[in-house]
């Protein structure tokens, strides 16, 4: 289905999700890369040795969840903007999802923005906790978004300017 709609399915996402136990230990990368394409910057970005070197540049990335410390370097390097960091330990009820962002304007810390799922559907408005610049060369921003825990594996995009499709 992903190759017809662009929306990764629940099964796709399951193959790249860590265990409940790992989620409870702190931030972790979710690499939503489901197609073998010639691309390997994530393997070089990872200084923790968590993203295994690829034998063939077309291989899918392989992440060792226990080695991953959720630093987020891979997120800003992935040319496909396909890596997210989820920290399910942010508070008792909330998680932080870190999302790559390449639109203007860039949201401000404390701003409420609309969270979108993988299909672009609005899931509510959420607080921006932190904004990291990718720097002059990289340019991809990382937006730290506070979301209810049960939406941590659903919120994958943001939009500024409030809810459009209230129903």
């Amino acid at each position, binding site marked *: 289905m*992903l*190759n*017809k*709609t*662009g*929306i*990764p399915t629940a099964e796709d996402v399951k193959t790249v999700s860590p265990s409940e136990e790992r989620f409870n230990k702190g931030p972790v990368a979710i690499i*939503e*890369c*489901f*197609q*073998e*394409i*010639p*691309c*390997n*910057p994530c393997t*070089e970005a990872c200084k923790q040795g968590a993203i295994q070197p690829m034998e*063939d*540049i*077309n291989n899918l990335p392989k992440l060792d969840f226990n080695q991953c410390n959720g630093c987020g370097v891979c997120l800003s*390097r*992935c*040319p*496909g*903007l*396909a890596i997210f960091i989820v920290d399910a330990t942010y508070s008792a009820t909330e998680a932080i999802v870190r999302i790559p962002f*390449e*639109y*203007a304007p860039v949201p401000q810390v404390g701003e409420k923005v609309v969270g*979108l*799922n*993988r*299909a*672009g*559907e609005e899931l509510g408005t959420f607080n921006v906790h932190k904004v990291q610049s990718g720097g002059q*060369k*990289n*340019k*991809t921003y990382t937006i730290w978004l506070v979301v209810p825990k049960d939406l941590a594996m659903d919120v*994958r*995009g943001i*939009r500024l300017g409030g809810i459009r499709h209230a129903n």
Partner: protein
Amino acid sequence: MPKVKEIEILIIGGGPAGLSAASAAADLGASVLVLERDDKPGGQLVKQTHKFFGSKKQYAGDRGYQIGNFLIEQCEKNPKVEVWNETTALGIYEDGVVTAEGQGKHLKINPEKIIVATGASEKMIAFPNNDLPGIYGAGAVQTLMNVYGIVPGQRVLMIGAGNIGLIVSYQLLQAGVEVAGIIEAAPTIGGYLVHASKIRRAGVPILTSHTIIEAYGQESVEGAVIGKLDEQWQLIPGTEQDLKVDVICLAVGLSPLTELCFQADCQMKYVPELSGHVPLRNKYLETTRLGLYVAGDVSGVEEASSAMVEGRLAGICAAYSLGYGNDVAPKLQAEALAELSELRAGPAGQKTLKGIIKLMDKGGAAC
């Protein structure tokens, strides 16, 4: 009588393949002249704002325009490379003379070797009113937005879900233009799925097995009628949808720009997997006209990453054939060939590999 310019290697086209060829050949010691039609080299790289795929060797993770700037700088720094901008190659003659038009002058160049790196041009599709103002090729939309800073309109229908359709849709969103949808006649998305997912999560629907039935509008595009296709690519009646858009952007594929190869009498072959007529060539990219090499999209439409590696390979081979780099050239050739195999090894490269096999096996290509 204008003087004839003598040069060791002439490269026609200053895009990713041509520039890579120029610095590779010059690094080995050859004198190189690059002809670039535009007022600045870089080819399509100057319009690419996204990060490139591939590996470090092909500058993966850098944005296309950054790679373009780097390749230009590499050539500018090398005293062996000369670039003539605003110069269009006109013909390759039997005696080896290449003619060109540059800044209003008719120029003659007498190179020892030629590398054709002319790239590709966009395809067009037929549908009623496809000549209305507001219908653009994806390259034109990129030029307007990323070179001149002008948005093409307010609401766009993108036709084609290959990498270009997906990337240009993303660029439109980044420029604040609404994308009503991306339609694709094939049953699946042709471009990289990470690009598709990025656009989809911004709320843009991607409709596979859909085609445009017609465009309409008085003075310019006011809308488009699209419909769903069955498994035989036939329109399913009753599935028509009317989309109010002021721009229709076509990203329906590229054709290799091979006119110069035809005219130089290279043996040509139609290979659909390589997107059209391409010259027969050996693995070192030399065509059946000895001393004439091809690199990049002109030898089969592919990604810019492989165009750069092909350019490097052609540059090394042309310089080596002139007696340069005897000690290192074989190693460099092997490295470039290995990189190409690596890039094409996965599912995304199968089409190209199949095309190259078709081109080289049954055509009687000279080696």
